[in-house]
């Protein structure tokens, strides 16, 4: 994959004018959003900004009241998660949706088991599971133990690995690093980069600015259900993004950062992100 600083002309997934109302609440209003192949777009916003609603709309859980969705150059409407999956949009939801009573192999291949003759091809599935998990540098001791006995991070890894099995074009990760340790977070970020190298469009929903700045090419900010700017990560700072998220250049986050700077008299010009 050649480096794609300026994304290719057509977006693999593009939303225009998406609106969604829940009773009296306008959850999304005129949202434009797009992701290109080989690009990581972070979707950020405060709590209640509409991130989850937008994710669920793309994943086919909600149908938008208004607006258009284009996938791979064709206008599409997804009425169910299965349809979204069929198109090539894989979603890893925050509540991973794994079957606790089944082992890792069964969970990875759930709904698309491999066959050999009349019986499931357990050997190939197990081999493939190891290949996938190794690729993600996953720390899972055995793929023949029930998922119930895995830690939160391990379960996240299984869920991400599963999303890759269907050869999707767009992968949506909802807070993938929220429950992970330091090393595993780095692994997931590596994985996100690997997905980009493989030419997938990645939508990364995250609260963690350092993760976003580390892997995203663009950042799309939602605020109170509306677009509040799209930033090229190479040409922006996390301050700017936080300002867009909170809707003000001076906000609680920047004030804290400023206070700390005056206390310690930070010498560097480029202030680190993180409050």
């Amino acid at each position, binding site marked *: 994959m050649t480096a794609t600083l300026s994304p290719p002309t057509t977006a693999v997934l593009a939303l225009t004018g998406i609106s969604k109302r829940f009773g009296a609440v306008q959850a999304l209003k005129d949202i434009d959003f797009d992701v290109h192949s080989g690009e990581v777009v972070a979707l950020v916003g405060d709590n209640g900004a509409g991130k989850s609603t937008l994710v669920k709309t793309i994943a086919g859980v909600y149908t938008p009241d208004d607006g258009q969705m284009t996938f791979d150059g064709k206008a599409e409407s997804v009425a169910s998660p299965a349809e979204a999956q069929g198109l090539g949009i894989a979603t890893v939801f925050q509540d991973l949706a794994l079957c606790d009573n089944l082992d890792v192999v069964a969970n990875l291949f759930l709904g698309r088991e491999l066959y050999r003759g009349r019986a499931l091809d357990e050997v190939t599935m197990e081999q493939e599971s190891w290949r996938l998990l190794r690729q993600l540098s996953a720390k899972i001791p055995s793929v023949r133990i029930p998922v*119930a006995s895995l830690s939160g991070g391990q379960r996240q890894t299984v869920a991400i690995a599963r999303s890759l099995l269907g050869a999707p074009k767009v992968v949506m990760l909802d807070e993938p690093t929220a429950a992970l340790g330091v090393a595993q977070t780095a692994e997931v970020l590596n994985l996100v980069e690997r997905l980009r190298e493989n030419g997938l469009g990645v939508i990364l929903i995250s609260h963690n600015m350092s993760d976003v700045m580390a892997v995203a090419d663009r950042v799309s900010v939602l605020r109170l259900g509306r677009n509040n700017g799209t930033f090229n990560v190479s040409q922006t700072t996390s301050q700017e993004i936080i300002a867009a998220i909170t809707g003000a250049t001076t906000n609680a986050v920047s004030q804290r950062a400023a206070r700390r700077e005056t206390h310690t008299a930070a010498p560097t010009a480029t202030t680190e992100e993180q409050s």
Partner: protein
Amino acid sequence: MSTPTPTPEAQSVDATAALPADLQDERLIASQGVGGFLRAFLSRLRSGDLGSLPVVVGLVVIWGVFAFENDAFLSSRNLVNLTQQSAATGTIALGIVLVLLLGEIDLSVGSISGLSAAILAVGFVGHGWSLPLAILASLVAGAVIGALYGLLYTRFGVPSFVITLAGLLAFLGLQLKVLGKEGSINIPFDSGLVKFAQASFLSDAASYILVVVVVLVYLATRLRANQRRTAAGLSTTPVVTLGVRAVAILLLLSIPVYVLNRDRGVSYMFLLFVALVVIFDFVIQRTRWGRSVLAIGGNVEAARRAGINVKRVYISVFVFCSTLAALGGLLAAGRLASANQGSGGTDTNLNAIAAAVIGGTSLFGGRGSAYSALLGILVIQSISNGLSLVNLGSPERYMITGGVLLLAVIVDSLSRRSRAAHGRA
């Protein structure tokens, strides 16, 4: 495994790996040799993964007590009777295992089996249908009822408990209606069904050949699996372990067969039941459909998101359960050579459900095996058979069976809690 023996098609995933791909994690507790096997087994038990151990222990205790009370209990003659008594209700219990795996229940299997017996008797004896046609009609009736349950469940979301409770009454009524005024129809002794259910036994030679074939098939499939796993760079079961298991299976099958053969032998009807158990075990463990059933029993939402057609699985399971119930009804009718108003009455229903649960299938869905129908029905029928041998009747039988069922459910609940605590869910 550590030495790079040049197996012809060895193609490990990771060329540098000395260990099979699935044994490389250092946190894995190696369980090698007999000691390792025992340790792994004990730790599994401690964490609440009991499998079929409670029911096997229960069976041994029950048999021990009755054998002590009455020598006739473990006689070949009585054990042949036991297999005959188990087949019909066991077949019904197999269907219950399927619905329990989904986390649902079917309370109407008794009525369905009775209705099926009534349809067979009226069609075959009353209307002079050919036997295959009458059998087919009964089974189709069962399948249609199951499809109806499935549609009601998936369309309206009514709990299966209530749907099948309604079915219990409705199909009991239909059974009485079908039987008409007489209320009891005898099936001729020279008909194929009665002969099959009462007087068809494997010859001694055939039964032993069957045992040997089963053991050989087991060995062949496991060795083949080992070969494929080696080729895939995965761990294999040591040949010694396989040999020990094969000998264990050989003994486990040939001793009962020997005992049964001293009397009439292995009956076709029991063989049919056991064959169904083996087939359904394979279907549950080794097909996509079975995997879907287990997944839905574990987490419906996850199964739905994985793209499984959840509704279709629900409907198909209800269809299988009702059809097996109808088949059980036919076997019972054949064994008793009659269909009457009491066919599939009170105990059939509860015995079938109790057998599935006692055998170790969880009421909470997602855990269990087809073999629990076999083990469970042996427990239930042993109790009823043994009590009648020691001259205790229905009152004691109901109370003891109820107690055993309660015990099984408590074991299920406790082991579930323990599994959750030990991360084995």
